[in-house]
């Protein structure tokens, strides 16, 4: 229908979006490459090129390895646990019961709260002494248990991961539930008649039919985990020590607290490379699985 001229004219429609996207998203990323080779501090406009010093420094310091490890743990746990819980909840909700909408909303509500508010509420929940968990333990006679969740090197990271899962699970539940509703009942009935058990029905009928929702949920939670920033920022300031530093939080702190823009840019680029590599591998694997399922 459209002539070639019309098609060319159509590209004008991309311009506003493209302009914003290039100026405020792509160009800054390119700028990072430049800054990463300098000793720029973000305030004084003159800076010197220092070659790969920033990268060399980073590779010699503990913070890089620690924040990579924390970010990977954060991502792995939120992806696996978050999606497993969400899928289990969605399957429960998909049963033929009343008040489905009520339950669904109840799991979705935390999603509507700002990370600031969620971080504050959970800081109270985790607080030693008067916090929710601590006073609950005291009430049931377990007062002797250590409840300093956010102050402990070994527990702080897992504690903020739990908050992330709590906040984001509602969205995944809704997406899985929509996927489950596309699984035709006849297919499950046919499977039952053929003598398939519950696990087999799930593995060979439900799960393949859920492929799209699984892909979406896993992809979104992988990206969300690799970009994790909110809860280290709001709840722990990366601490105690550097035990809850994620890559993005470490980069932010380096830039805005330590005023090392150059070094932070280098860390940003390393993080970026890691995020892209993992996301691409995930998306390709999931797509292959989805096609074959």
């Amino acid at each position: 229908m459209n002539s070639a001229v019309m098609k060319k004219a159509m590209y004008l429609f991309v311009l506003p979006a493209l302009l914003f996207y290039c100026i405020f998203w792509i160009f800054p990323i390119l700028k990072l490459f430049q800054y990463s080779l300098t000793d720029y501090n973000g305030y004084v406009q003159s800076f010197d090129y220092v070659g790969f010093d920033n990268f060399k420094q980073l590779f010699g310091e503990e913070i890089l390895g620690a924040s990579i490890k924390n970010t990977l743990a954060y991502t792995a746990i939120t992806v696996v646990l978050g999606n497993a819980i969400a899928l289990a909840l969605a399957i429960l909700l998909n049963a033929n019961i009343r008040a489905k909408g009520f339950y669904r909303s109840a799991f979705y509500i935390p999603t509507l709260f700002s990370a600031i508010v969620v971080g504050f509420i959970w800081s109270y929940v985790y607080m030693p002494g008067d916090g929710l968990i601590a006073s609950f333990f005291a009430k049931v006679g377990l007062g002797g248990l250590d409840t300093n969740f956010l102050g402990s090197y070994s527990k702080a990271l897992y504690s903020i991961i739990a908050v992330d899962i709590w906040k984001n699970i509602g969205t995944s539940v809704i997406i899985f539930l929509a996927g489950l509703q596309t699984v035709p009942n006849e297919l499950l009935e046919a499977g039952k008649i053929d003598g398939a058990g519950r696990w087999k029905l799930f593995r060979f009928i439900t799960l393949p039919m859920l492929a799209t929702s699984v892909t979406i949920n896993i992809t979104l939670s992988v990206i969300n985990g690799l970009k994790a920033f909110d809860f280290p920022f709001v709840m722990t300031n990366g601490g105690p020590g550097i035990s809850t530093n994620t890559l993005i939080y470490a980069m932010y702190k380096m830039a805005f607290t330590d005023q090392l823009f150059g070094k932070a840019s280098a860390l940003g680029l390393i993080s970026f490379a890691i995020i892209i590599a993992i996301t691409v591998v995930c998306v390709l694997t999931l797509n292959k699985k989805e096609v074959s399922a």
Partner: protein
Amino acid sequence: MTNESRVKRLSTHAILLALVFINLVPLLIVLSSSLRSPRNMTNPLNWFNEFTLESFESAYTRMHFPVALWNSVVLTVVSVAFVVLFAAMAAYPMARIKSRTSKFLYLFFLAGLVVPGQMVLIPVIQMIKGLGIPLGQYTPILMFITCSLPFSTFLYTGFIRSGVPEEVEEAAYIDGAGLFKRFWQIVFPLLLPVTVSVIITQGVWIWNDYFFNMVFITKALDAPLPVAMLGFLGDQQNPAQWNVLFAACILCALPLLVMFFALQKYFVGGLTMGSVKG
């Protein structure tokens, strides 16, 4: 109904109710504490032992609630309007034209999804200053629009490709309607389901964002709700009591909660948009 299936149903309800309870306990404690007077320091676990709006009144004044609410509304509405406009327009050629350029553009936008805003922030402040754009109350809008483009163009493009074939424009084309007219009068109205989805998914994150707002907004009275809350939390000179802070938490979340319960159907539909269409 057989006895067995009744037992099964009841136990499903029991399990779900228990899970909902565990899930919402922190929020219920916050609600119960916010309904106490600021001086009531009894154990929060003895919940709902007092009902007064004193803490709410204090939080309402101290976080300048009406001003912060208005700021949130302006930031969110303006940003989302531009996102809808720009993303729908950009998706149109990306879905209609089958060429390398079009495919490249689609992936180029989509790739932006993996970029963390914190990373872009370092150079972007310099960029904005360099362009002579003043830093202030409305600067975050630029970042909100930009950050929302990858996901929104992805949704719109997918929808046009699978759900809005070129044939719908045929009659108008024969009548000699230009591209612009065909897009706005015929294609855009058909995109309503995606537009709802974009408004909801992007609107919620923009409403709740504290990061870009915190970076660009320096005056207390320019701040939207999450930043007003942040300032209130960090006020060392004038620390607030727990109950007042909890009331502030509820106030901060209230507008979205009200929206959610009023428009639940659209929220659920909007969230699943990308996942069912593929």
